[in-house]
């Protein structure tokens, strides 16, 4: 039965009191994903607090520490399923650390639900959430206009909000935006169609979550295989076996394919695609496999297999100042995932091998970025020491204005230039999320202090 269902990961973003918790509670409740013991626990609490109805928002109530100290600890993951799909919700509480939390949750999401209070319309926060979703390249956006019951279910009000949002969103790298009028409190257009809004003919939120096409959310064209682990069995029967274990991050590979190993640039042919369930002729992203080669080449963790030939798309001259951020390059570069559907040329492209590159950075740590210090960057399966050579500007996430800055603080988004001690095999984040993303680790504390997107 559900053995052939797909997995969709999504996040919800909204300001405090827009109804995010109520909406998630409603989705879980109306899709029958709430268990009796959970329901009776929140019923008891609702009663204790003197509420007339069961407060569904209590389902996503947090940890004891949060309850006691009123602090929020970034992302909570929730799970539910319908016969059509399995869902993972990355639930991000609002408040001060919002940028950091949302960036974290969005990094693995196929879709973002951006909540708006119908009475308030498009607010600064809406712009911020939308900019962050576009920065992280969340492929699908749902603008959920909530609390429609409080604006008399007005079609005119909904269209006003949608119009304003679309004007703003046009500046961003958002490709697939769906707008739904709903009432999380009463459940209108969440799972069930709303009788009060018969003027709305589109899908309910759940219908959309169940049907939005996610096949092209990964780059299906440019084969990328970072080596994770070298498999050398000690047994006699596998004496000559040397397999390269990893996950195909993009594209596909077949037995006999000519591959180049970067950064060394040596070439060979795929001999076998080994899996526990037998050898394959062809494998696709995001499968985890073990590859063997026709030739004996010195390869270790951190090296990347790509298809031989092809053109270098990510031709970023080292250290050059390309004055653009992810939002503004969107138009010219486009997402390669889109071109894989066939409109643009079929030729695959090659990543760049670079020790200097530029990136959009989200600073996650309470300790500001220090340009005099060394950090580690972890990119695919390779970790290298790095230095920040420049901070070009900080983006005000509310207005999208750029400001020159000397340092970066928690929640800042900025365009920076980096130098690494070893070369990295990189793509633009827009072309391939897995080979265009990295994290920055503080050498002294070992903490993860930033998330980067190569631009």
């Amino acid at each position, binding site marked *: 039965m559900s053995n052939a269902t797909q997995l969709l990961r999504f996040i919800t973003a909204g300001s405090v009191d827009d109804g995010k918790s109520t909406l998630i509670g409603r989705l879980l409740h109306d899709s029958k994903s709430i268990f009796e*013991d959970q329901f009776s626990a929140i019923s008891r609490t609702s009663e204790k607090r003197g509420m007339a109805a069961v407060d569904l928002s209590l389902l996503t109530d947090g940890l004891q520490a949060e309850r006691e100290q009123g602090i929020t600890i970034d992302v909570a993951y929730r799970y539910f399923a319908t016969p059509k799909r399995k869902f993972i919700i990355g639930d991000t509480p609002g408040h001060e650390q919002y940028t950091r939390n949302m960036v974290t949750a969005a990094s693995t999401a196929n879709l973002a639900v951006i909540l708006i209070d119908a009475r308030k319309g498009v607010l600064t926060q809406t712009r911020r959430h939308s900019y962050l979703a576009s920065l992280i390249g969340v492929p699908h956006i749902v603008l959920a206009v909530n609390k429609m019951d409080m604006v008399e279910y007005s079609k005119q009000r909904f269209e006003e909000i949608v119009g304003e949002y679309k004007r703003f969103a046009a500046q961003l790298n958002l490709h697939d935006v769906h707008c739904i009028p709903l009432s999380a409190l009463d459940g209108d257009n969440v799972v069930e169609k709303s009788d009060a809004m018969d003027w709305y003919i589109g899908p309910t939120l759940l219908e959309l979550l169940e049907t939005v096409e996610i096949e092209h959310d990964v780059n299906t064209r440019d084969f990328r295989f970072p080596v994770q682990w070298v498999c050398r069995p000690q047994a006699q029967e596998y004496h000559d076996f040397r397999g390269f274990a990893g996950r195909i991050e993009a594209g596909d590979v077949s037995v006999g394919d000519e591959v180049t190993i970067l950064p060394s640039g040596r070439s060979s042919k795929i001999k076998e695609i080994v899996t526990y369930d037998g050898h394959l002729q*062809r494998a696709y992203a995001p*499968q985890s496999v073990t590859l063997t080669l026709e030739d004996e080449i010195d390869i270790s963790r951190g090296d990347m297999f790509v298809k031989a030939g092809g053109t270098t798309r990510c031709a970023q001259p080292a250290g050059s100042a390309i004055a653009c951020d992810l939002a503004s390059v969107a138009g010219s570069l486009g997402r390669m995932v889109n071109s894989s559907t066939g409109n643009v040329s079929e030729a695959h492209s090659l990543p760049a091998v670079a020790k200097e590159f530029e990136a959009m950075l989200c600073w996650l740590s309470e300790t500001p970025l220090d340009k005099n210090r060394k950090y580690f960057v972890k990119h695919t399966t390779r970790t290298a020491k790095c230095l920040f050579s420049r901070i070009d500007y900080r983006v005000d996430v509310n207005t999208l204005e750029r400001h020159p800055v000397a340092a970066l603080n928690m929640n800042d988004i900025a365009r920076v230039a980096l130098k690494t001690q070893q070369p990295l095999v990189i793509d633009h984040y827009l072309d391939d999320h897995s080979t265009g*993303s990295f*994290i920055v680790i503080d050498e002294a504390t070992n903490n993860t202090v930033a998330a980067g997107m190569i631009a």
Partner: protein
Amino acid sequence: MKLVDHNMTKHIFTHLDALESESIHIMREVAAECKNPALLFSGGKDSIVMLRIAEKAFRPAKFPFPLVHIDTEHNFPEVIATRDKLAADLGERLIVRSLEDSIARGTIVIKDLDKPRNPYQSVTLLETITEFGFDACMGGARRDEEKARAKERIFSFRDEFGQWDPKNQRPELWDIYNTRVHAGENIRVFPISNWTEMDIWEYIAREKLHIPCIYYAHKREVIRRGNALIPVSCLVQPKAGEIVETVSVRFRTVGDMTCTAPVESTAHTVEEIIAETATTRITERGATRMDDQTSDASMELRKKEGYF
């Protein structure tokens, strides 16, 4: 995820494929980046799924880590038998450390002999980590199990005392995992974080995994206490006035014999368990673990103390 290749033939990548590939990726990151990892293996269904994922990640080689079990000596004998059989069949090294060792050393003092021993497991686990110098322990916990788990990272960072500080966890972005620790510190890794109870059962069915027989419906002597069915065993005997009934039951989790309650069931196959799981209205922990019901936050407290 459906993937389209150049010939536009469709390759169906199901949610189980996606979860499996993610878990393999996580285990390989641990094997490649941690100096001395271990895989916690109890013989329960989640850790049996973990073993299959390890096979998929590392075969034809041996696992680059040992299997470790912290035995409370309160385990169901069927589970221990399965634990030993699976480790032997795979030819992998199994390290067992018992709470009794810690009791003998005096690091655990048990006040009430019949009470659940889960709270003490953390002590023996930390002692075992020190004994072998493990820098990473992989466990089969899932985020859908309990509220305190919902915010757990896949790579969960513990200080020198094995403690989990919910306020001081590293952000986890994409699937780039930060595995760096200082000497003496430790990470717990949860490769199947994103799996639900249903996913586990579907995977057991798909992979035809051998699991302890007590997961299937069987007749058992139980006592009703509140809503729970308590299995009668050498550790649990009826109190005065309690009636022993023989009921057809199965276990959804297999922990400490004194606090793991079975559910009424007639499911004799994995397919029947899946059908029951699809219609069950009670969470796995709500139905079966008395130790987490004591208070809304009891799991969180135990995690802070170093429990998995």
